[in-house]
């Protein structure tokens, strides 16, 4: 598992690979928190290389979305969500809480 953060002019990009589950979810939460502590609330989460995500992952994303949207200061958007993960988000209606982009360029270009 690796988590990488890149800061751009209008947003930061967080990329994680492998599994997001009860074992790794907290590390992702830490990464999002670290970005927010730098005063950045416009986030792109690049899911290209995520191959599994349990509900632990959504809650990390939901908590991050809540923090980002507070005071209208920003938003977290998702990019390149693998089909199987998207299907499971759809199943519980979690997809409603996030803008989802087909590619990272569009997601960064959105901010």
């Amino acid at each position, binding site marked *: 598992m690796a988590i990488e953060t890149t800061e751009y002019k209008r947003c930061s990009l967080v990329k994680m690979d492998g*599994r997001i*589950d*009860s*074992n790794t979810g907290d590390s992702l939460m830490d990464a999002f928190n670290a970005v927010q502590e730098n005063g950045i609330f416009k986030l792109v989460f690049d899911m290209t290389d995520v191959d*599994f995500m*349990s*509900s*632990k992952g*959504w*809650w990390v994303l*939901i*908590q991050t*979305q*809540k923090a980002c*949207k507070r005071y209208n200061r920003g938003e977290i958007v998702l990019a390149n969500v693998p089909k*199987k993960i998207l*299907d*499971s988000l759809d*199943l*519980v*209606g979690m997809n*409603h*809480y996030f803008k989802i982009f087909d590619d990272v360029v569009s997601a960064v270009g959105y901010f």
Partner: protein
Amino acid sequence: MASKVFPGEFSSLEKISDFIEKHAQICGLDENATYAVRLAVDEACSNIIEHAYGGEGLGNIECTCNVLEDGLEVVLRDKGKSFNPDDIQEIEVGIPLEKLGNRGAGIFLINKLMDEVHFEFSKQEGTTLVLKKKK
């Protein structure tokens, strides 16, 4: 039939996932069905560690895969505490973000993903969860 005992720790989740994947493929489940079972089992095992045992390293999870004619049966056994599955509230979808909680949906998801979900609780033998996914 293949059975394996995993320590009740979050680091076991990936190994359990791999074990399930292997047997789902043996049963001829397609990619989507295989992912569904992996996800349901992951949710169930996370619950066992968190809720049944109340933490990591406090007990084992026994995982059994049975090849059925029409799919895969997964049986999970633990010695942790029981609960009433009927008490679990459905997750509300479509509510505003601020009103969303910070957890939940595991059981809800398991029910959505699997064709059969069956809990058995026994004072002597602990909890048995039987999950079935058709091809």
